[in-house]
């Protein structure tokens, strides 16, 4: 059994500082690893090898890129608002780090060489998951400010588009989390992990899991929802005018956001640091000590691999298509599912023993099946456009044009020329 909410808030100062430094270092290293891994995996999906020169298997590639970026010239455009231009990357990066303070990496462990027992989590609070959502919203401020302060329309539009997309999918994300709160009865991450001791939440709450995964891809501006970053649309989007380490900070923040939403997904739906089923039954120590860190990172990296996989295989959605999807499809489904889960719980509480949790599974299965069928229904075919009925005018517009479908070349007019020798008889 893991730590409860009461185990927090009692650490001595040096333990707090140690854990904060550890979380920071883990995040930075995870980002460097993610950048390398993404390039390798996407390359393999495209039948080529990724970076493999700098260091063994190219692992130092991200570090080399970081150093390269640091040595580039720092340009501030003439039309930029200097103060906000310099502050925007900071406003984006700091919330990205801070959201990781409530993620549970493991149960209570004893720090080696000392006698202090502390949970492997920086802190926990009764509103932990809402804290994560709130701080992530502060990061969106930085994107809008970065886009506006660059002084060019493309950056402004890119920043606004990015932030509009992120807030649209945040509604869907919040609604998907409501069902988790219904099941767990708490918002504190360590308690939610404890509540998943029997069954991970992605099984009874499968539609919420699907909705959460889709909206987390939309929240982080990753493919296939990454139109604000498409080169052909808005150049670089909100980070067009940034160079050197400020640009690196935006990139860092994007990858850390990816890691954060993956970590929230594992904590809320995949059982956090709990060992997968079967391992915990066979091996008693799988949920003790430092082993849960392995399970946690395994699940988080599985989600990040899923992100990379989506990027490597799916084409980009058009902006109005995914805004429509976020507002018109995900929100109604989430609301209906919330009412469904609440209704199931009422029935189970009031009429306990007559209907049990298997019905929740059945309902979830039916729901997921309905979702899949609706998503895969073919569009109603548009009727073929009517062919042109106008007379064929060979020299319309001043230059020769071929006939459109429905038009015919005019019958060949005899010119009177017959084949006879010109005069050389």
């Amino acid at each position: 059994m893991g730590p409860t909410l009461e185990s927090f808030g009692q650490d001595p100062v040096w333990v707090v500082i140690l854990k904060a430094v550890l979380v920071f270092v883990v995040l930075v290293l995870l980002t460097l690893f993610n950048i390398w891994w993404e390039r390798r995996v996407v390359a393999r999906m495209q039948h080529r090898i990724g970076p493999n020169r700098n260091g063994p298997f190219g692992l130092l590639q991200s570090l080399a890129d970081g150093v390269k970026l640091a040595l580039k010239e720092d340009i501030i455009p003439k039309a930029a608002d200097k103060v906000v231009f310099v502050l925007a990357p900071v406003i984006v990066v700091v919330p990205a780090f801070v959201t990781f303070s409530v993620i549970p990496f493991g149960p209570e462990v004893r720090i080696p060489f000392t006698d202090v027992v502390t949970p492997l989590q920086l802190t926990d609070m009764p509103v932990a998951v809402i804290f994560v959502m709130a701080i992530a919203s502060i990061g969106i401020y930085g994107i809008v400010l970065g886009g506006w302060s660059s002084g060019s329309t493309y950056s402004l539009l890119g920043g606004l588009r990015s932030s509009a997309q992120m807030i649209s999918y945040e509604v869907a994300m919040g609604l998907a989390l409501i069902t988790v709160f219904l099941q767990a009865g708490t918002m504190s991450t360590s308690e939610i992990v404890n509540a998943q001791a029997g069954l991970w939440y992605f099984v009874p709450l499968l539609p919420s899991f699907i909705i959460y995964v889709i909206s987390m891809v939309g929240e982080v501006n990753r493919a296939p929802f990454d139109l604000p970053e498409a080169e052909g649309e808005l150049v670089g989007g909100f980070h067009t005018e940034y160079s050197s380490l400020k640009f690196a900070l935006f990139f860092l923040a994007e990858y850390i956001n990816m890691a954060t939403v993956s970590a929230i997904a594992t904590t809320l739906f995949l059982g956090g640091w709990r060992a997968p089923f079967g391992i915990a039954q066979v091996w008693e120590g799988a949920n003790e000590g430092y082993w849960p860190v392995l399970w946690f990172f395994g699940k988080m990296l599985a989600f990040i691999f899923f992100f990379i996989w989506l990027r490597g295989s799916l084409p980009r959605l058009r902006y109005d298509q995914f805004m429509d999807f976020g507002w018109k499809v995900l929100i109604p489904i989430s609301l209906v599912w919330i009412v469904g889960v609440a209704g199931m719980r009422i029935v189970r509480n009031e009429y306990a023993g007559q209907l049990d949790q298997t019905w929740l599974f059945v309902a979830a299965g039916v729901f997921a099946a309905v979702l899949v069928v609706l998503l895969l229904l073919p569009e109603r075919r548009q009727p073929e456009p009517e062919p042109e009925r106008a007379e064929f005018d060979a020299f319309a517009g001043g230059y020769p044009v071929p006939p459109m479908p429905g038009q015919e070349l005019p019958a060949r007019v005899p010119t009177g020329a017959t084949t006879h020798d010109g005069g050389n008889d």
Partner: protein
Amino acid sequence: MELYTPILALMVLALGFAVFSVVVSSLTGPARYNRAKLDSYECGIEPTPQAHGGGRIPVKYYTVAMTFIIFDVEIMFLVPWAIYFDELALFGFLAMLLFLVNITIAYVYEFKRGGLDWD
């Protein structure tokens, strides 16, 4: 309050790292002046002059933000109800169902009137 001080520690660390990066990026790296570098990027051509701050923006971004606020407030009402669901029993469920029906009516109205369309 002791639950929140570790967040302060991590925030100070992240802030220090970010400020350090921004300061370092202006120190290291050359500073070769070139007039073209200071213009806004417009795929290589001369940028068209814009009003300060990028000019006017389409109003649909603003309406999306307004709609987001409404649904975010709805989520904020749903969250404590979800936490204390078991104590609130059937009466709480029906009360929240009434609230959700109100929000759904507003949502369907906005859907049909085109408020959720992206241009």
